[in-house]
């Protein structure tokens, strides 16, 4: 046990160190300065922007920036939907896999365009190699780049000196892919092949075991997709069971690399924020608020999974960590670490089955998603999500002292607070309203696998994951039914664009304001007091909204378990 804490500490230290370095690099990239791969990538960047035309060079206001995001994502959605529907007649389909039905293709296309990567299908069973590559891998890159671009634009809104400009989407998106996502993915993909993740266009292999039984081993171009799904907080695995699959995550080393990638860019965005606003302490303050919430959840899940299932000890006389749904090589420690990282960071990949985690571990994972994926969150999305809470936190502070709130010298007024609350409301709408609907409509209830309170947790998890654009699942939940593919698709759209658009509007509004110099009455937003206020705002707004539902799900299950009640 003590050595497992050392593992967690080393993981955090390495991740933060790499993220700090990456932030300096990204700062140069997004401000258009030279970086060391520029001689190689520069020509490619110029070619991409030239093809996009003059619109790719003009500075945009928030509305034009938002319209570009929507146009690009709509085009991506239509293309991906078409590939999924037509994969049966397209090449690189060695297993002869059939086209996806319309509702599932809608769900999958929305899922990958919104950076959710909720998977209501199983990759090795329902996707051709072409669909995995040209369909899903492309969206893994560009949905991540979309989130990064929006975050950079939002930061520019806080910095702008009254001209209302937030940058150019096409430039930001292309730079995010070419300078950040693609080079890291190539290196990581090759490292994963070295560790045993397959990378081939060939089909499944037939083996005959030592005992004479047949085993068909699915494989394909997995490593290239696994690298970007970890790096871009996408999470959609090549195989249905994601990084629990021994060919998706074969070794401890591959597991640690993938675990670091989950948080790498989200953490780097905190430091990038500090650099872009010209006051690195502001970035550290955001990092500290996220870090406190992250470590608290990590310690909880780790302790709970290590302690194991008391009902198993009772029923079978077997003690030890909770290993149902976990791989021996990862054990409880690395499975708990991944579970916390992937739900905090809106990644949604898994190396163990969350449905079989202990009830209170499930509670932590649910909360990570329900607060809006702001504990580092998705690439870019976590930062602009947290900035939403920042607006609300300084507003609350302003109310307490009776002064117009300010953040980074910009006055936070009625328009910003209204927009922030509007964006915030998409979470309870997508999670509570859609879950409630699923819990009363027969078509919704049919998907529930487990009896008792765990069944409610399955519904809550599905809609928290979709609305938070996370993508992990309590996988016993039958998400492939048309009722849920459709409703989940709507939840994912809501959780993505009902936050992006108001956040860009806030940035646009702030970009019109000139920063005022700090005075003696200015509330400093880089100290422990502000960090505490921010954490409390997240917990009160985020957590209390969902507390009643959580009492009926994971908390009721935990209490039943202590009382020896199974379902």
């Amino acid at each position, binding site marked *: 046990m003590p050595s497992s804490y050392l593992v967690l500490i080393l993981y955090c230290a390495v991740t933060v160190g790499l993220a700090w370095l990456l932030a300096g690099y990204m700062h140069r990239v997004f401000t258009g300065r030279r970086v060391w791969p520029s001689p190689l990538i520069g020509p490619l960047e110029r070619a991409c922007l030239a093809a*996009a035309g003059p619109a790719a060079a003009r500075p945009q206001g928030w509305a034009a920036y938002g319209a570009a995001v929507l146009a690009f994502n709509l085009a991506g959605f239509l293309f991906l939907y078409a590939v999924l529907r037509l994969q049966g007649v397209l090449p690189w389909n060695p297993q002869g896999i059939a086209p996806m039905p319309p509702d599932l293709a809608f769900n999958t296309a929305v899922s990958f365009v919104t950076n959710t990567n909720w998977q209501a299908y199983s990759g090795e069973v329902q996707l051709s190699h072409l669909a995995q590559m040209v369909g899903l891998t492309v969206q893994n890159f560009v949905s991540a780049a979309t989130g990064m671009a929006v975050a950079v634009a939002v930061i520019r809104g806080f910095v702008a000196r009254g001209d209302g400009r937030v940058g150019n989407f096409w430039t930001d998106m292309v730079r995010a892919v070419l300078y950040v996502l693609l080079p890291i993915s190539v290196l990581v993909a090759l490292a994963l092949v070295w560790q045993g993740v397959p990378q081939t266009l060939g089909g499944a292999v037939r083996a005959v075991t030592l005992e004479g039984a047949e085993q068909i081993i699915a494989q394909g171009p997995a490593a290239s997709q696994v690298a970007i799904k970890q790096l871009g907080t996408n999470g959609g695995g090549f195989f249905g069971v994601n990084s629990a699959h021994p060919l998706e995550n074969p070794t401890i080393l591959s597991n640690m690399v993938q675990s670091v990638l989950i948080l790498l860019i989200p953490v780097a965005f905190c430091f990038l924020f500090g650099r872009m606003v010209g006051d690195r302490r502001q970035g550290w303050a955001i990092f500290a608020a996220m870090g406190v919430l992250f470590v608290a959840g990590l310690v909880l899940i780790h302790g709970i999974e290590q302690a194991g299932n008391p009902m198993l000890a009772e029923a079978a006389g077997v003690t030890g960590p909770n290993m149902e749904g976990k791989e021996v090589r990862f054990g409880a420690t690395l499975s708990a670490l991944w579970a916390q990282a992937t739900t905090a960071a809106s990644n949604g990949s898994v190396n163990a089955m969350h449905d079989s985690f202990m009830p209170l571990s499930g509670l932590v994972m649910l909360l990570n998603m329900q607060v809006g994926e702001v504990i580092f969150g998705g690439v870019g999305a976590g930062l602009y999500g947290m900035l939403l809470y920042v607006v609300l936190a300084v507003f609350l502070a302003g109310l307490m002292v009776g002064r117009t709130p300010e953040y980074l010298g910009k006055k936070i007024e009625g328009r910003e607070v209204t927009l922030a609350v509007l964006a915030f409301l998409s979470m309870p709408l997508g999670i509570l309203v859609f879950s409630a609907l699923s819990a009363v409509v027969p078509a919704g209830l049919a998907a529930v696998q*487990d009896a008792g309170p765990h069944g409610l947790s399955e519904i809550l998890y599905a809609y928290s994951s979709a609305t938070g654009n996370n993508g992990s699942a309590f996988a016993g939940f039958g998400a492939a039914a048309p009722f849920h593919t459709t409703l989940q698709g709507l939840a994912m759209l809501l959780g993505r664009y009902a936050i992006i658009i108001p956040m860009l509007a806030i940035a646009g509004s702030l970009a019109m304001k000139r920063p005022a110099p700090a005075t003696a009455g200015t509330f400093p937003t880089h100290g422990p007091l502000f960090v505490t206020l921010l954490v409390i705002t997240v917990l009160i707004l985020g957590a209390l909204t969902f507390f009643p539902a959580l009492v009926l799900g994971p908390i009721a299950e935990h209490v039943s378990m202590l009382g020896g009640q199974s379902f």
Partner: protein
Amino acid sequence: MNDHIRPALASLGLMILLTGLAYPLAVTGAGQALFPEEAHASLIRQGDRIIGSALVGQAFAAPHHLHPRPSAVDYDAAAAGASNLGPTSAALLAEQAARAEAFRAATGAARVPVDAVTASGSGLDPHISPQNAAAQAARIAAARGAPEAEVRRLIAAHVEPRWLGLFGEPRVNVLRVNLALDAAFPLAPTAPANEG
């Protein structure tokens, strides 16, 4: 909106070429050139016959072989999966209790390792814990007519330690141990290896 259609289509087209084709094909080319075995699922061959993948778990039921963990998909490597049942599921608890009884009966072990009664997340876990493997040594030795101490020694030699002595858990690769067992203690010709 017209302002956005050309850049949207042009950017998407270029991204498809770059990230959907060039990237995976480049990784495929480089990966297969640098790591030809690993890029094709790390297969283990005996002559022309593919025995399995060094990384993917398989079902073994014969008494002379090391047995893997329970699997929710019976080690179907074309459609991996887990039980996905929660910790208060009565069905899961009953199944786990039955597995514990069966393990005690087959090995005579007093303490049942938790990995022997739980199914993995993939249903393809290639490993078991060293305790689980050691508990099966007596059964394997008896079935092969081999000295138990030597079977134990062979299993102990196959225990893979934590990475850097710290990360992950100690483990035993079931297929590798079974290959080594078959090589070290071949079965008498009267007991064909294909039965099980």
